[in-house]
């Protein structure tokens, strides 16, 4: 901290500086905490098969409904399966699902939204109406239809979620594109006679990424929750394969006497969500290039 200039008391200067620094600290803390949390969960999940945990599918009726202890970190469910092991193994499925669906949707939505916003006119109208349709369509029916075609299981879940999620990114990107469409550096690229692909991909796209990336952070968790809902309905992951949402659903009937079956996987989802959110916050600050 620089020494106070004349014209201000020492204490006031100290106070001001503290406030100034607080902003920055918070943004950095957010980012790194978020990264730490998600990294830990991801690492543990990916390493799950190699950590010497109990078989997530192995039942042990003698130890059914055991509360968390040093032997069973997260307790056991009604079939005596080790919940901790199941949570970590489920993480591999859930996390991958969340990330893949989010970023595939992002890429598709980004492209479509950018084109829609750039060209405007009838193209924009048509695309946006399709986007509206997709977003407002009852999601579950869409998934059921896709599952009916593709067959039950993860593949159907992946396709279904991507088929809907892209629309959100498209709409978001189109809005951002409209905002920069008329900014002078884009107009300038046009007067220079640059080809449209160059204008869109080299000039516009990098500036459209920020909003999408920030949004994607919350989207990851939402997609994981969607998988949970689907598993609950019998689509997506079928038992006995562990999946966070499915575990929560299964534990419902024992909520009062064996709270740990639902609650602990739930907490892990929350933790993952918080982790991604914090990354989103931190990123939003880092990517902010509106400095004037």
């Amino acid at each position, binding site marked *: 901290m620089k020494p106070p200039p004349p014209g201000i008391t020492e204490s006031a200067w100290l106070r001001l500086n503290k406030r100034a620094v607080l902003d920055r600290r918070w943004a950095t803390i957010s980012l790194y905490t978020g990264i730490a949390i998600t990294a830990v969960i991801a690492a543990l999940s990916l390493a799950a098969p190699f950590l010497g945990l109990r078989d997530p599918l192995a039942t042990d009726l003698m130890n059914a409904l055991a509360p968390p202890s040093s032997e069973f970190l997260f307790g056991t469910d009604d079939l005596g399966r080790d919940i901790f092991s199941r949570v970590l193994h489920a993480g591999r499925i859930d996390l991958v699902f969340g990330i893949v669906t989010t970023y595939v949707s992002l890429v598709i939505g980004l492209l479509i939204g950018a084109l829609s916003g750039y060209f405007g006119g009838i193209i924009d109208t048509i695309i946006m109406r399709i986007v509206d349709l997709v977003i407002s369509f009852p999601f579950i029916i869409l998934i059921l239809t896709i599952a009916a075609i593709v067959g039950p299981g993860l593949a159907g879940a992946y396709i279904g979620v991507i088929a809907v999620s892209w629309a959100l990114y498209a709409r978001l990107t189109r809005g951002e594109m409209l905002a920069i469409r008329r*900014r*002078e*550096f884009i*107009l*300038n690229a*046009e*007067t*220079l*006679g*640059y080809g449209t692909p*160059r204008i869109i991909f080299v*000039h516009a796209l*990098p*500036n459209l990424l920020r909003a999408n990336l920030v949004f994607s952070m919350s989207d990851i968790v939402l997609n994981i929750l969607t998988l949970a809902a689907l598993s609950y309905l019998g689509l997506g992951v079928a038992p006995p394969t562990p999946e966070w949402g499915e575990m929560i659903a299964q534990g419902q009937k024992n909520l009062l006497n064996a709270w740990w079956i639902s609650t602990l996987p739930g907490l892990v989802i929350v933790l993952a969500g918080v982790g991604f959110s914090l990354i989103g916050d931190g990123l939003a600050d880092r990517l902010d*290039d*509106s*400095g*004037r």
Partner: protein
Amino acid sequence: MIAAPENPILSVTGLRKTYGGRHSLMNMMRGTPARRLVALDDISLSVGRNEVLGIVGESGSGKSTIARCIVRLERPDSGTVAFDGQDVWEARAQGLRHIRRNMQMIYQDPYGSLNPRLSIARAISEPALVHGLIGRDGVRPLVRELLDRVGLPQSMAELTPRALSGGQRQRVAIARALALKPRMIIADEAVSALDASVQAQILNLFSELIRDLGLSMIFISHQLSVIAHLADRVAVMYLGRIVESGSTADVFTRPRHPYTEALLKAHPDLEGKASREPALAGEIPSSYAIPAGCRFNTRCRHAETACFASDPPPTAFEAGHHAWCHVLPDLKGIDAT
């Protein structure tokens, strides 16, 4: 029409541009036709070689629209724009490339005119690369030359616009415009967003470039003092029409149109005290509802019957000085020095 200088580098004839009317629900239900916004109404002007044409006007005058029609950003409804004898809007391929290289634009907002994600070096060199004027190895020397030319330190090459001040960004925009070695530059309120001390630097830079590179320029501004400093000839616009044009000296010392006189009077004067009355009463009419007859009649203190009946034709005065006014009263300009 401004008296065409011999062999102008740019000539604009009969440009018209309107924008679609607003459709409000009420209008649709009542069956009222949507109103159209008239931005340009029969604009003709020309720019000589190595000459600076100033275009001055307030909101709704159409001055920015002209710029966009000239550089092919907006299609005029009718009229022609010819650069070096070539029709700008009809040009294709080779001809179009030639035009684009030779006409560059500098915008008002130094913060919006640069891509926030590109380094300065990339921003400056990209046009030349894309147009094939230089190869990869030509980038560094070009960047070096241009930064020198606009008075920026070489260390700035790898920075992004975020680190630069408004004046510096505007210099980068100028450097970028110069990369293609254009023959004409259109500056649309290029110094309006800058502080006074920085504005002076940029104006001097423009003067230097015009002199050293033989550039022609269209300088659009609402600030009369800036126009007086830079422009050889000036066109005064009001609600989509040119109301007076001629050499800057003539137009400012002996204005023939009441609007020009008002603009000159309204300009804050460092010497005098504020006068009793404002220079001009009334509001600028909406571009959706241009007054019939001479469009200035709603605010003109010299208005007569003829002014409400028809659009005034041009009257020619000495040396290419024209005014579009029925009355042509005696008016007072600034003192000649």
